[in-house]
């Protein structure tokens, strides 16, 4: 058996997994998106492209814009919080480096849904945080945290922050320290050195983090469902509503397919940019 043959064999488990857990479900979603429903809400497979027509109803434009807006805000906040954290860990973490990265990942051991519920208990009008605020006497009445745009964005940032930190950490860690020293040798101020040396050298990590945060944030429904209010409906909520509320899987599947196409567009843009960057690096 040749080495190449052996290597190909190694691909089988992963390939099978992708086929069964990704390709087959995706095909089912596609098939369902052209279906209709019976009185019980069961999907009947068929040819009903009108599910897609329905999805282009102007009614849904604000929902999509809101989702993208929340996701962009989430990316921005994750970057603001995540970059300094990643920078510190990579450059000054020393022997605690791996431990600190483990701490960043630690919250993922608890399910996102459960963690979001914890925020509900913390931030409720008469919850723990407001209890502390009123008891200490900072304010007479609590602050309305929950059911606002900020709460939804906060939930998203909390949920996806690690996806921003990890790639940036990897990029900074990989970066040649001598570059920064060279910048300083050329009388660069810390800010100028960062702007002209560190930032460009780690930009691909930032881009990767932005994509990793943006994509799931656009499709998220948990944050808006639990922390949001009547005016925070996102695409994910709309899709979830079709599956669990309206018994309309075909329409939900059509929306899912369109969202996938929309997200793939950004994914492809990112992949092309990453490919270009590595080509340039090779030159």
């Amino acid at each position, binding site marked *: 058996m040749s080495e190449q043959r052996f290597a190909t064999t190694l691909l089988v488990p992963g390939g099978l997994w992708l086929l069964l857990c990704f390709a087959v479900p995706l095909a089912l979603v596609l098939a369902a998106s052209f279906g209709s429903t019976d009185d019980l809400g069961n999907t009947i497979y068929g040819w009903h492209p009108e599910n897609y027509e329905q999805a282009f109803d102007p009614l849904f434009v604000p929902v999509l814009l809101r989702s993208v807006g929340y996701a962009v805000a989430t990316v921005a906040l994750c970057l603001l919080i995540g970059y300094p954290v990643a920078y510190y860990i990579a450059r000054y973490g020393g022997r605690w480096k791996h431990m600190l990265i483990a701490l960043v990942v630690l919250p993922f051991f608890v399910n996102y849904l459960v963690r979001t519920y914890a925020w509900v208990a913390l931030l409720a009008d008469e*919850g723990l945080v407001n209890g502390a605020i009123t008891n200490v006497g900072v304010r007479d009445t609590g602050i309305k945290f929950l059911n606002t745009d900020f709460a939804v964005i906060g939930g998203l940032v909390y949920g996806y922050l690690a996806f921003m930190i990890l790639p940036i950490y990897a990029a900074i860690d990989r970066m040649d320290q001598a570059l920064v020293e060279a910048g300083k040798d050329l009388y660069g101020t810390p800010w100028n050195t960062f702007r002209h040396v560190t930032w460009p050298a780690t930009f691909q990590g930032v881009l990767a983090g932005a994509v990793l945060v943006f994509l799931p944030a656009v499709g998220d429904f948990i944050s808006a469902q639990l922390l949001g209010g009547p005016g925070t409906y996102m695409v994910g909520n709309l899709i979830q509503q079709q599956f669990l509320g309206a018994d309309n899987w075909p329409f939900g599947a059509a929306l899912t397919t369109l969202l996938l196409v929309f997200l793939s567009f950004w994914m492809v843009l990112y992949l092309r940019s990453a490919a270009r960057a590595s080509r340039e690096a090779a030159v």
Partner: protein
Amino acid sequence: MLNQKIDRRDLLVAGAGLALAGCGVGNSGSGSKKETEKVVKAKPDGDLVYFNWAEYLDPALIKKFEKRYGVKVRQSNFDSMSSMMAKLRSGNRYDVIFPDQSFAPKLIAANQLLKIDKEQLKNYDNVWKFFHDPAYDKGAEHTVPYGLYATGILWNEEKVSDMTGSWADLFKTDAKGKIYMLDDFQECLGMANLRHGFDLSTTNPDEIDKSKEMLIDQKPLLRGYSTDDIQNMINGNAWIHHGWNGDVVNLRNQVKNPEAYRFEKCKEGIPVGSDTMAIPANAQHPGTALLFIDFMLEPENASQNVAYFGYPMAVTGAEAAFAKIAKDDPAVNITVEDVQNGQQFASLTGEDKALWDRAWTEVKAA
């Protein structure tokens, strides 16, 4: 090991098999009538897989049942009728489920509920006569009534006053940002229908359109849509909550100032209904399920349950338990007359269901 060749055909077969299994799940819709007529004896045939609303049955009774019959009760919860249906549709198997009267007929029509042999239920005679032949289940062949409920308005008297006994109270501007509506398309559109003076379950597109507009106009006043009226009231996020009568009783059991939490049945009319206990046709332990249903019909257990969850049950012998709760507050009571005279949600299908769904989606997306 290294020499083992993975045949491409094997892969295809395995993949196709799984794909077919997947399609099967998607199509687990209508069963055969025969499947619903299986002969089942009321005796333990395994652990009970139980599927109900959360906090909707006294946990102490679950323990008592487990002890008496030496079985475990494996519990899971749904938060709306639609999500119950979605779970059933995706092929999950349960032994006892609690559909309400507007969803039970759909399940019955699709041959998804086992016929319940009343001979197997020692306590069946305790069920109120009205429910021996309810409109939602001819001859009560597939269901046994559970909680009776009415939808109205819960409020916290320490925070709001001047409640008027009308659905207009859900539009009180001085409680702006502290009002919740039930996250349920039928309850919300139904409320707006009643406030407009339309039939609760109207399928007239113009009327549904007006009700939709009313709900959209209400949104700036709302804190959210949620079926968790108990928690929202307790944690102070809600002062006024579109909700169910029994939840206020349950809620009073959980707070230090129970007298502050009130309930009103609105004068424009209210939806009343009953939940039911039923056994899915594909239940794996229908014998245990029959025992459980019978257990819940024992007057002593029904009384204990009523005291816990705050809803009347249509069981002779449990009235006293409810009267005790309702004594200070007739607003939470529901009598058999209420059930007979009140407006009940129709079981919407086809175009009518699509009309309601679309209106609700527009409300949520607005």
